[in-house]
């Protein structure tokens, strides 16, 4: 896919914050000494009076965001996914989630595609952690288009939202006329033999795998699920009923993320044979992002191999 345009979703995030800042005087942005990396620095350059660097204190940042929201502001709080969702988990749970405050959390550098920094920075648990908080909307956009639309949808939504962004450039999958809605998934490719449900950068991998499967005569349906919570149960049940086999693909632990959410949905509403592709209950490691995605079988080839094995089993 080397000819395809690639953009990191954190770039989309920074750009959209600047755009929203012009329209929303009550929008403020917080960061924890990573503004250059999370791309909130783009907002800081244009709106320095509405940008607050909290320094290396993520828990404090999340509670400050809660206070800002309680006083009528719309705060975006950003850090790496590891520290946003992990370090500050209890602040998000108690200061933001419990009072259902209108805080948006923009978490970048999620998953193993962080690359060289290694396991301490490769958050594979954030979607599971955030999904457990009542009232929290959890999104993992697939590309630049979806990331920009997800950020805009987040400010239209009254309540806490967690959005996951990546460090590495990823292929642009969606056209500009894509109609994004929180809680709604989309079918990117129709198929009848197996459903591949993916999010984040794994959507591009799933599409690539579907092309490879087609050459073997396997007709895969590819479903994009940006919003893990609330999950588009209807679409999941619909695709599962159609193909009878569901594979989830995500740059996250196979426990508690997209795979967990889809399994919960299907086991209650439409028991279906499933396989979860993701990081299989291990920590990550250092290396270039592309090589790691290959090693953990989350690139097109890895997804193809695993779907094939699942179908042939």
């Amino acid at each position, binding site marked *: 896919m080397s000819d395809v345009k690639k953009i990191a979703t954190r770039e989309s995030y920074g750009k959209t914050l600047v755009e929203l800042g012009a329209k929303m005087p009550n929008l403020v942005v917080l960061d924890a000494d990573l503004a250059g990396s999370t791309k909130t620095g783009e907002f800081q350059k244009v709106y320095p009076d509405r940008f607050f660097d909290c320094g290396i204190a993520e828990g404090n940042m999340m509670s400050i965001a809660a*206070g800002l929201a309680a006083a009528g502001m719309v*705060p975006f709080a950003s850090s790496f996914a590891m520290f946003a969702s992990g370090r500050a988990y209890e602040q998000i749970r108690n200061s933001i989630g419990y009072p259902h405050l209108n805080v948006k959390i923009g978490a970048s550098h999620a998953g193993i595609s962080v690359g060289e920094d290694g396991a301490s920075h490769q958050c594979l648990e954030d979607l599971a952690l955030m999904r457990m908080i009542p009232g929290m909307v959890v999104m993992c956009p697939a590309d630049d288009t979806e990331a920009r639309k997800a950020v805009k949808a987040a400010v239209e939504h009254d309540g806490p939202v967690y959005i996951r962004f990546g460090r590495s450039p990823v292929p642009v999958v969606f056209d500009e006329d894509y109609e994004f809605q929180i809680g709604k998934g989309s079918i990117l490719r129709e198929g009848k033999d197996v459903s591949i449900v993916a999010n984040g950068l794994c959507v591009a991998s799933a599409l690539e795998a579907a092309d490879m499967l087609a050459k073997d005569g396997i007709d895969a349906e590819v479903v994009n699920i940006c919003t893990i919570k609330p999950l588009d149960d209807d679409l999941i049940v619909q695709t599962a009923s159609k193909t009878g086999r569901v594979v989830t693909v995500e740059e996250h632990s196979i426990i508690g993320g997209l795979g967990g959410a889809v399994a919960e949905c299907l086991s209650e509403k439409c028991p279906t044979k499933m396989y979860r592709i993701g990081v299989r209950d291990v920590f990550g490691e250092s290396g270039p992002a592309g090589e790691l995605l290959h090693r953990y079988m989350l690139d097109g080839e890895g997804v193809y191999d695993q779907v094939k094995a699942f179908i042939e089993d």
Partner: protein
Amino acid sequence: MQNNYIRELKKTANQVRKNIITAVYYAKAGHPGGSLSAAEIFTYLYMKEMNVDPANPDDPDRDRFVLSKGHTCPGLYGVMAEKGYFDREELKTFRHVGTRLQGHPSMRLLPGIDMSTGSLGQGISCAVGMAVAGKVQKRDFRVYTLLGDGEIEEGQVWEASMFAGAKKLDNLCVIVDNNNLQIDGTLEEVNSPYPIDKKFEAFNFHVINVEDGHDFEQLAAAFAEARTIKGMPTAIICKTVKGKDVSFMENNAGWHGKAPNEEQYKIAMADLERIGEAL
């Protein structure tokens, strides 16, 4: 010379203490010790210091109060009842199923609660966020937050203080209820945060030490001074007595989080009745 308004405040604080004991007794659970120690602080804030109106609890220009030591909400509910946010009778629903008076304050259930708290160390950060909002919105409201002296062992308190000092949040007033007792014993026995004043000074706060946090004249002077401070937040460190005015609860860590039985309830109310009559 004791003027009339001080006498009225003392009477209100005495009633707040009765409200605390009543709420905790009917709940058969709760935290009387640190509620009683802050009765004068709650009373001064709600009856004199803060610009708040029970008829308009969402006024964007109102002063804000965040009870960072959320477990001492019997004291907060006690003064809110006196201010007119709800009827005293409702105090008897504290901690019962379906109540608006949750075991720790919920801003979604009870109008007048500015922040849901209970997890120690987080309330001060939320108050800092409100103070930032005041600056961005160019509104004149002030933000008050009450912390326990054990609570300041939480690292987040110092993250919040570092930020408040660095950003010169002079619309923020932090109050520490220094009753010197936490669940496992005295502060020194557990993990001493002393000297508290020097710590806040080091974090670029204007610090006011109140020798007797039950003396309304000292509280009035401290809060008046805090209003004059520009370019930095203020911390008011109030020395208090945990369990104040209930004979068997005073200076007893055992009454941090325990409800009195019927006999103890009667003794406590008689203690408070006697003190109230003498005013």
